[in-house]
Each structure stands twice: as structure tokens, then as C-alpha cells.
């Protein structure tokens, strides 16, 4: 093995195989032993791959490349142009041509030297790729939303536990200061007993559609691996419009529409604020023609998934008996009483750098990160149940312990979708 490619995984494996006791060898080789100037030793680097490199994936990958203990060894995308661009980006970053490009996720996941993967595919493939990555022994940072159906994210969480993998959901606002501050106000009781929380959805209409477009001739696999793009979803003839984000984001086979698009962030922060990372609301109903949602947790706190909050994208508002807080991506925050805010100022934006860094630390320490699979599953479950409520056009009840709709066969069927060969949960 080339020493410059010696991975942390390789080191741990070798250490485990060759060292009889902890005292027989140093736990970590001194950085001066192997590290190039300004970079940690190879034994301390995390060898990574990126799967799915559209706009979001490029941003995430740049955040990972900004960490000197990351070595991006491969990129994978079903779209040729994105694949080539990503490889060029990584090669330019390292000043070499070592980065390998893959079409099929199974090929990049088969690489034994890769410790962890960044997953930023379309939403439809998030769960499937996460599960396959865990089966291959990788840790992962996976973009939101975690799943397209409740059963998928349940399976992701179970698989992470089963293989003791580190999973960080790309709900990076858990590491963005104004959101952290808002959640902390609620969690620490400074707002008093919580009454209601408001989570903004992405656009006014909550519906998803299941459109089928006229078929066209398949493009060359090098340009678009259509079967790979579809992943576990229903097969249909190729049409380039499917691949447009503006289309698939509202398509029920490929995403969860307005509620999941922003709710995966805003509902997630509200769940966190309500100390509800292990549950979901138990009753849901629509409250207007835009199918805004009112949901109620077992502790009586109400959650509204709606439009109309302030302060930029992905805003939230949390109301307690003694105060309230409202903030969003603009970084502006309003708090009542004002004394709770003190002298704090927030920059705004929704950078993922701290979230990425925390994930990398957890890969090394094996501690669970701030947005682990189980919590992310519960957040996105809340969004999915809300979507099911919209789709059925009636109120629904949810049992967060059994993870089922009590005495509601119709709703229960919508918890899952049969995976298309060769994928399985």
C-alpha cells in the first residue's frame, strides 16, 4: 500500500490485526511520522467518497475538502457532467489526478480504503444509498431529507445501529448559532412550558404529484445512468424533465414536496426544541386550503407546518408560556422577553462547515453526532405523516411508539413503498 494512501481504516485494521495489546503500540502514530506539511498523518485522515454531486453536493464536498484530515478519494454520480466536474474539483484541490470517478454507487462503496461517504443524491436515493453504505461499513454524512417514506428512514436508523455506523443527517442548522440558541432557549425552559412551534414549509402548496412524462430514448449511460437515477423508485421511460430539481422535488416518488423540503430542517429544529428527538406528534390535521398542518405532540405542544414566518428561508418560531423566539436563515432573531437575547448577534446563512466538522470528529470518536439517524428519522417521520394527512385529505393519528397509524389501514399502507430490484431496505 502506498503510504500516502494509507487510510485510517487501514491503520485501525492493521493495528487490530497486529497488536496484541494497547501497550504494544502507540494508539496513534505521531503526526510528524506520516503527515505532509500542514496535513495530519495518513493514519489520522478520513478517506472519503462523495455520492451525488449536484449543487448541494458540490457545496458539501467543498466543506469536506476544507478539512485537512479528509482525503477525498472518489466521486460518484449518475450524471456524467457532474461526475467529471467533481473529479476535476477534487483533483485541482490536491494537485493530482488520483480521484476516481464512478457511475454506480456499488463500485465506490466496494472500495475498502474509503472510511466514510458524503451522500447528496436526489432525495429518492438518500435512504437506499445510506443503507448500502452502512452495509459496506462506511460512516456517512447524508443530505436531508433522510427518506421519501417512513419505513425507509426507520430502516436507515436500524441499519446504522445494527452496524454501529456514524450517520450525520445534513440538517446543519443544528450547528448554526441562531437556531442552536433558539432551541436552547426552549430546551432550557427559558421560554416556560412550551405551547406551540411553527415550522415553515418551502412553498405554499403542500401537495405532491405522481406525474408520468412521455418517454424518450435513453441517453448513453455515461451521460445519464437512468436506471441508477431512478434507484428504488418505479421504473418509467426516460424523460430529461424528471432530472430537473424543480420537477422531482414535487414528485411523490422522488421527494416529499414543500413539507419535506424545508420541514426536514424546520420541523427538525422544533422537534429538538421540544426534546422530541425520539418521537413525533400524535395527531395531525390540515387547517386551510394550502394544507398547512396543525400537529399535536403527546406533551400537548402544537406544531404548525406553514408559511408566513419571518427572517429568510427555513424560519421557525417557538412559543412558551413565558416567552417566544423566532429566527431564520437571515440570522435575525426576535426573542421575548428581550432580556433572553443579551448581546448576541448572529451572522445568518446556513453554512454546513461546523456540521461537517462535527461529523468528522464523530467518525474518529465513534460518538453520535448532533443529527443522528434516529433523531432525523423522527423529524422526517413528522413530515411524512403530515404529507399522508394531506394526501388522504383527512385528519390522522400517529402512534410514535409502534410507528403506525392506529386502526387506519389506509394510512398505514403509505408508510412504505416497495423497493425496485436490486435494492432492499
Amino acid at each position, binding site marked *: 500500500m502506498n503510504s500516502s494512501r494509507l487510510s485510517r481504516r487501514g491503520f485501525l485494521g492493521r493495528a487490530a490485526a497486529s497488536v496484541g495489546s494497547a501497550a504494544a503500540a502507540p494508539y496513534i502514530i505521531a503526526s510528524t511520522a506520516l503527515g505532509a506539511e500542514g496535513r495530519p498523518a495518513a493514519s489520522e485522515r478520513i478517506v472519503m467518497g462523495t455520492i451525488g454531486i449536484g449543487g448541494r453536493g458540490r457545496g458539501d464536498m467543498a466543506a469536506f475538502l476544507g478539512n485537512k484530515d479528509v482525503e477525498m478519494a472518489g466521486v460518484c454520480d449518475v450524471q456524467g457532467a457532474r461526475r467529471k466536474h467533481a473529479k476535476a474539483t477534487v483533483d485541482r484541490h490536491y494537485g493530482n489526478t488520483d480521484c476516481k470517478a464512478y457511475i454506480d454507487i456499488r463500485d465506490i462503496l466496494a472500495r475498502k480504503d474509503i472510511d466514510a461517504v458524503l451522500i447528496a443524491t436526489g432525495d429518492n436515493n438518500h435512504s437506499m444509498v445510506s443503507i448500502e453504505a452502512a452495509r459496506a461499513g462506511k460512516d456517512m454524512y447524508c443530505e436531508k431529507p433522510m427518506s421519501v417514506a417512513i419505513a425507509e428512514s426507520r430502516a436507515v436508523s*436500524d441499519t446504522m445501529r445494527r452496524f*454501529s455506523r456514524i450517520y450525520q443527517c445534513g440538517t446543519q442548522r443544528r450547528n448554526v448559532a441562531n437556531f442552536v440558541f433558539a432551541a436552547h432557549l426552549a430546551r432550557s425552559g427559558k421560554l416556560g412550558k412550551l405551547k406551540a412551534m411553527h415550522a415553515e414549509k418551502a*412553498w405554499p402548496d403542500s401537495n405532491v404529484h405522481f*406525474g408520468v412524462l412521455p418517454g424518450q430514448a435513453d441517453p448513453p449511460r455515461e451521460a445519464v445512468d437512468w436506471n441508477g437515477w431512478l434507484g428504488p423508485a418505479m421504473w418509467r421511460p426516460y424523460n430529461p424533465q424528471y432530472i430537473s430539481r424543480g420537477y422531482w422535488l414535487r414528485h411523490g416518488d422522488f421527494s416529499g414536496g414543500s413539507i419535506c423540503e424545508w420541514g426536514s430542517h424546520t420541523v427538525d429544529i422544533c422537534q429538538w426544541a421540544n426534546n422530541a428527538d425520539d418521537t413525533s406528534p400524535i395527531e395531525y390535521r390540515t387547517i386551510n386550503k394550502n394544507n398547512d398542518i396543525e400537529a399535536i405532540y403527546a406533551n400537548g405542544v402544537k406544531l404548525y407546518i406553514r408559511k408566513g414566518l419571518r427572517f*429568510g428561508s427555513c424560519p421557525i418560531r417557538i412559543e412558551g408560556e413565558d416567552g417566544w423566539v423566532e429566527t431564520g436563515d437571515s440570522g435575525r432573531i426576535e426573542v421575548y422577553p428581550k432580556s433572553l437575547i443579551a448581546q448576541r448577534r448572529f451572522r445568518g*446563512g446556513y453554512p454546513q462547515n461546523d456540521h461537517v466538522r462535527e461529523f468528522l470528529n464523530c467518525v474518529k470518536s465513534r460518538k453520535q453526532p448532533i443529527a443522528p439517524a434516529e433523531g432525523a428519522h423522527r423529524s422526517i417521520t413528522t413530515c411524512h405523516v403530515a404529507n399522508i394527512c394531506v394526501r388522504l385529505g383527512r385528519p390522522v393519528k400517529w402512534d410514535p411508539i409502534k410507528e403506525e397509524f392506529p386502526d387506519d389501514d389506509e394510512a398505514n399502507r*403509505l408508510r412504505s413503498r*416497495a423497493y425496485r*430490484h436490486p435494492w432492499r431496505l
Partner: protein
Amino acid sequence: MSQNVRHLRITARLCLACLLLPATAGIALSAPADAAARGRREAELIKTLTSDASQARKDLACRELQVIGARACIDALEAMLPDEKLSHMARYALESMAYAEAGKALRDALGKTSGTTKVGVITSLGFRRDSQATAELSPLVSDRDQDVAVAAVAALGRIGTPAAAGVLARVRKSATGRLRAVAAEASLTAAEQLTGRGRQAEATVIWEGLQDAKWPAHVRQGAFVGLLSAGGDRAADRAIAAIGGGDPGLRAVAIANSSVLKGPGVGKRLADQLDKLPPDAQVLLIDVLAQRGDPAARPEIVRAAASDSDRVRTAALGALGGIGNATCVALLCKAVATGKNDAERQAAINSLQSLPGEKVNANLLACMIAAPAEARPALIDALAVRQAPGTVNALVEQASGSDATVRTAAFKALGQLATPGDLPALVRLLVSPIGGDAPGEAKRAVVLVSRKIRDDSAQADVVLAALGEAPATSIRCSLLQTLGGIGNAKAFAAITAARSDKDADVQDAAIRALTAWPDARAMDATIGIFRTTENVVHRVLALRGCVRMVGISVLSTNAKLDILGELLREAKRAPDKQLVLSSLADVADPAAIALAKPYLSETTVRGEAELTVLAIAQAIKTSHPAQANAAAQALLKQSKDRMIRRDAGRLVRDLTPSQPR
């Protein structure tokens, strides 16, 4: 363009995209309300499935049947299972149906399918956890088609009955390659299922088997966590063995999962591992011991606080905040005084602030008094954060000491800890020779403690008494500034009187106090200063004071416009005009636009004026749409700022009646 604006733009494009969806998007997928209508709809869908309709139509019918399908549709769906093109969507409908007939249809299809369709059927049986399929699936684990064998093994894992687990045990022994990997995963899954059925012993056997070095690290680690989750003394034994063992990956997993281990003496046993570990692992274990909060681990943590490793020392000092007690105070104070780096010192400070225990405050106070001057401010801060009672006398002493940094810290703490009964002592400090150059913290402390007096009218009394006896100008100025902070009626009267003092410095202090008055009581006086003073500094202070007070006042809109209009007309400097314009933006009235409009052509303040006009126009778009529209149109036409034009354009669109398309 900010990230935030970009995000909103993307969302706007998505909103637009929804208008361009194809006609096929409008497929009804909600269920008919009554049973009869559902039955009719199901019959129609069955008809579609059994006709020569296109695959797309059959796919959509299956999608609908997933929600409304009853037993009647199962035969039609079953007939589709062997068809390579239709099989997946037939499973789409069948897989989530609770009917036993749906399971039977899938099981029956095993004999009618092959290749990918068979794999799909097996996967659906696994998803349903169909234990009745165990007998049919068991022989398939050795099917010649490896995809079929893999699917069967995975399905048996999900089914997870003892019988299925038995099959998997055999596969684990004999399988190679991909099948072996899936057998490991399926076994882990089955172990969880067995645990759920109360068959812990059988699950443990599986997990123990997967500890063998022949299995990949993630399988071993997953099985190890399974064993820990089983709980009991064995779990602690296993964790401790792994922590002391030679597999660094497993050690990290063991440490990370040790925070929830239960049992007598577990905390102590874990702590006993500390000095056997390399520094990086010690840091992880110290973190876990802190989370556990077991006092039995304290001696080892204290020992680690003297480690040669910077990281270990820092981690241990930080952990003592939760796990330490009063006996740790001296150690932590010493670290604050002599710590080798900022992280170490900060960890010690944090721990001193949160350390639990009755005698902690007393010990900390004693340590603070004995500490070198450079360490004392941090220790005083810790006392303040702890709201430590019985410390005021000592803090007053520190506030009168020779070290300015210590004095400042002491005054800051006194502001939080002192009570109204302590006010005379604090004011004596303020009027003492030290008070002459007293830091802002000294005045702030007196203000904070004065405001703790419940009777508002009495809040300034102690300071006023001192003012009456103060001979020196510097002291009087200091007391006047303090009165300004207290801000009650008596303080206002005293400061108003001081404006006529024969000493120019006292006059200056009075004006500064008035212009910085905490509420709108001083509005008239401040406007008066603005109108009459010839002192440039006082004029600027008065303008700023007026703008601030308008913002917090309950004046009528007209009164606010009068004041801000006057300030705007009389303001000479661009920053002052900008300040007034920014305040004007909060007045939702067309007259406010009229006031701001002339400044749209003034180069130095144009940007602020445009923002002001835009904000007012947005605020009055409902109450005064015509004026809002006119203002937005003007901005759209004249502004050189792209963002202003964008937002003005949006406002114009909002206010323009939509045309039929």
C-alpha cells in the same frame, strides 16, 4: 448574493416550476370517502389491471390500489407478479396490505417467478416479515442464482424467527463472498428480532459469533453494540475488556457506548481503565465518565487532571465540573492560575462555574482571596456565575484594591450579587478616591443594585445623598452619570438641576446623562439640547438620543414625524441623516415617505433613503396601496441598487391587479 437570498430564489423557482407541471400530474390518489365508492373505484382499477392497458396506466392503478385496494384486487395483482415489467408495481400495492391473502399471493408467486422478479417477491416477503414464508425461503439460500440466494438470506433476517435464525447460522458457516456479507447482516437483523421476542439468549449467541475476527469490523462492532444493549454485568465486562483490549476501533465503540452501562461499580471500573489507555482514548473515556456523573470515578479524573498530556488535562478539568465536588476547588483554582494554555484554563473556569456541592462557594471564595491577582478576575466571575451568597464583603474589598482588572471584575460581580442593603458601601466606593477613576463597571454595579429596590421612587436616594455631600467635580460627574442610569424621577430632577451648575464639567455630565436617558422621559429635554446647544458634541449626542427615544416611545405617529422631520432637516452630517432615516423606516405612514423622498437624490445618504422608502412602502401596502405603489415605482425607476429594484419590483407586482392568463 447571500446564502439566504439564494435559498429563497431557488424556492421561488420551484414555485414557478409547479405551474409548469404536465397534465399527468393531477392523478387522484386520495381515497373515496365511502365504502361503496371505494368498491366501485377498486373495480375500475382491477379492470385496468386485467385489460391490455399500457404499463403506465397499470402502474398508476397499482399506486392507487396501494391505498384503497381490498381483497378483491389481490388476484389481479398476483397475476402481475411474474411479469418482469409489472411485477414491481404489483408488489407496490401488495407489500403494504395487511391481508393474509396478500402474503399468500406473494408466497405463491415464488414458484412462478425467477430472476429479478423472484428477487423482488422475496424482498417483499422479507419486508412483510412473513414468518409463513420461512419454509419456502429456506431452500432458496442455496439457490444457483446468487441474487435469489442473497434476497432469501436477507428476508430470513427480517423474519427473524428462531427457525429463520437457524437457517442463517448454517449460511454463516458455509457462505462466501456477497452471500457471506448478507448472512452477517441478516444475522444481526435476526438477533434484534429475537430480542424483541424475548429470546435474548439466542440473540446473544448470534452476536457473540459475529465477534470473531473473521468478520468485517463494522459487523463485529455492530454485534458488539448488540451485546452491550443486552445489558447486565456481562455488558460491563465486555465493554471494559474492549476498552482495555487491542482493537482501537472496538475500543472507541466500547467507550462511546459506555455512558449507558449499568451495574454496581461500573463507573469505578471504567475509571480504572484510564491510566492504561493512550491519551486520545483517555479523552474519550473522560468524556463518558463525565456523562455518567458517577462520583466513584472522581479520583481517577482528578489524577488525569495532572496528566502530561494537554488534551487529557483539559478534558479532566472540564469533566470535574459535573463529577467533582468541593475538594476539587483548589485544584481547579490552581489550574486557572497556572494552566499551561487557554483551553486548560477555560476548562477549569467552566468547571468552577458549575461545580456542585455545598462548600464549593466557601472554598472558591477562600481560593480567590489567596490567588494571584492575574487569576482573581476569573475566580470572581465564577463566584458571580454561581450567584454565590455571602461574598459581598470580600468583593467590596477586592473592588477597593490596587489592581484595576480585579476591581473591574469585582464591581461586575457586585452588580449581580449585592443587594440594596449593600448600596451605601458601593456608593462609598464610588465617591472614594478610587471612585474618581472608577470603571464603568462601578457605576453599572450601583445602577443594577439600585434598580433592585422595589420602590421606584427610592431607587436613587443613596446616590442622591452622596451627591449632596460630594465636593469634588469628578465625583459629582460620576454620580450624575450613575443617576442617569438609574433613571427615575428624582434622578431626572437632580440632573436637570445640574444643567445649571456653574461648573462646566458638571453641566457636561448632566447633558450626557440626559441624552443617554434609558426611557423617553428625557425626550423634551434632549430635543431642547439639540435645538439650543452650540456644542457640536452635545448636538450629536442629543440627535442620537432623540432618535433612540423616538424608537422606544409611545408617541403618536404625527409626533414622531414632527421630531424626526426636525432632526432630519437640522442634521448636518451624513451619518446623522442616515441614523434619522433608519428610524423613519419604522414609521408606517405615507408622510414618512414624503420626509425621506428628498434624500433619494442626496448622494451620501441615497442608499439609506432608498431602504427607508422601501420599508415604509412595504409596511403601508395594505393601508395605503396607491402611495406604496407610487413609491415602489419610483425606486424601481431610479435606484441603482439591484436588490432595491428587485424588492421594489416585487412590491409593484404585489400591488398590481393580476391579469387573466
